[in-house]
């Protein structure tokens, strides 16, 4: 298991509860989706894996190199697309030519040609999402975290980025953990769904559907219905 939580809790200032007794494990190479209502603790799970915050109690096992794609993009507005992709590569003892070639590799992988000198403000939401993914991949992480990266995009753009993410996951074999508020999206993309509700992990679902997955296929709808039943319980 590349990530495991054993009875993990998180409180802020010793009183504000964010997560209680969470236990789950994510195998190497899995595509895990953390779903749940807003304010239920799913972002806390991601923040603990990312190292943004520490667990108050319990045992967390996670790899050292984790990177993240943020909901807002979190791109540096003063850096160009190429400089943003290279953001995490500086200070790692790499030569400038190595930094450039690595950034270029992911720049091409995410199909950003023609945008290298643009600033984030000149990009569309989808392009920003792609730059965020390229930046996260460029550091060659063991685990890639995605924090609702598609929530602000239109359905067409979301569909395109879904395809990109699945392609990257298959090509790189990286473990992906994504937070989403959409059960359909979780079933469409992932190999496991972790339901976090009322600050606790309620249930873990294995999604063993063939790809490509179609929302109107019966097995797909059955999985969605099963998760919804737990979600709204």
């Amino acid at each position, binding site marked *: 298991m590349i990530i495991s939580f054993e009875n993990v809790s998180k409180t802020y200032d010793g009183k504000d509860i964010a997560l209680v007794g969470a236990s789950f494990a994510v195998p190497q190479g899995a595509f895990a989706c953390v779903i749940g209502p807003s304010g239920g603790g799913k972002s806390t799970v991601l*923040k603990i894996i*990312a*190292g*943004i915050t520490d667990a108050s109690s319990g045992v967390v096992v996670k790899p050292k190199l*984790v*990177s*993240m794609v*943020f*909901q*807002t*993009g*979190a791109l*540096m*507005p*003063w850096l160009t697309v190429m400089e943003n992709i290279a*953001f*995490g590569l*500086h*200070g*790692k003892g790499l030569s400038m030519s190595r930094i450039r070639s690595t950034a270029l590799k992911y720049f091409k992988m995410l199909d950003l040609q023609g945008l290298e000198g643009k*600033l*984030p*403000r000149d990009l569309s939401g989808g392009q920003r999402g792609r730059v965020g993914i390229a*930046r996260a991949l460029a*550091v060659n992480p063991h685990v890639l975290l995605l924090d609702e990266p598609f929530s602000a995009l239109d359905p067409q753009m979301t569909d395109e980025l879904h395809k990109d993410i699945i392609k990257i996951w298959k090509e790189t074999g990286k473990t992906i953990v994504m937070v989403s508020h959409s059960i359909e999206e979780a079933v469409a993309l992932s190999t496991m769904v972790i339901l976090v509700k009322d600050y606790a992990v309620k249930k873990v679902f294995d999604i063993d559907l063939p790809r490509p997955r179609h929302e109107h296929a019966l097995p797909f709808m059955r999985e969605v219905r099963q998760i919804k039943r737990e979600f709204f319980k």
Partner: protein
Amino acid sequence: MVIHGNAPTPKTFFARVHSALIPVVSVLVLLVALRAVSLFPFGSSVSLPASYVAGAFFATLTRLFIAYILALAAAVPLVALSRRSPLAENIFLPFFDVMQSIPVLAFFPLIAGIFLRFGLTDAAAVFVIFLSMLWNIVFSLVAGLKAIPRDISWAAKVFGVRGWAYGRRVLLPAVTPSLVTGSLLAWAQGWNIIIVAEVLHTYIPFGTGADDLYGIGSILVDSVVAGEVGTFITAVVFLVGSIALINFFVWQRLLNHAEKYRFE
């Protein structure tokens, strides 16, 4: 607390020229109007050589520049201290607020006791300008740091950008827009106070105009006292014209450049 607005900055060359000319034209119109209605209180019309006025202007500019660098150097650790913890912020920010509301000249006994007593008139002038600039820079830095989105700080943490690298690669660029605005306001405060700063010693017993600092502020004061209308107009035109040029070539450019660093 000072709230810095986000007024749009002129982007085109002509818009910037227009913006820079407004103060010059306004002052000239005012002078002509005052003359026309015979409100000008001066008699003689002695005018100093332009080179003397230019030299005085650069002497004043040097004082402002030194004070600005000192204000910047003092503001950074003050703001860093206030950001150490929520408790520190709760203590320091109200303190800054009180300090910025105290008029600079309320520190006159301190200035007289420390600087003027030992004949350090130039240092006294720089100190007064420094005090008038400091709080604009402090509050602009505080506002700039508070405006950094949480995701940006988290992204830096996730990608291992910490310590000095975080300061250089994230904090400094992130505070650039508010620092430029704060610096512009600080310099405006500095220009406002130069007239007093360069003749401070005349406020203490036995202080005379003979010891005035060489600067555009003291020329303005002395020309009014002596009723030299020509000197006064030369100094005002030089001062306003130079500030307009500085505005055009420095501040407008910096404001435009800083737009790149602004979070959406």
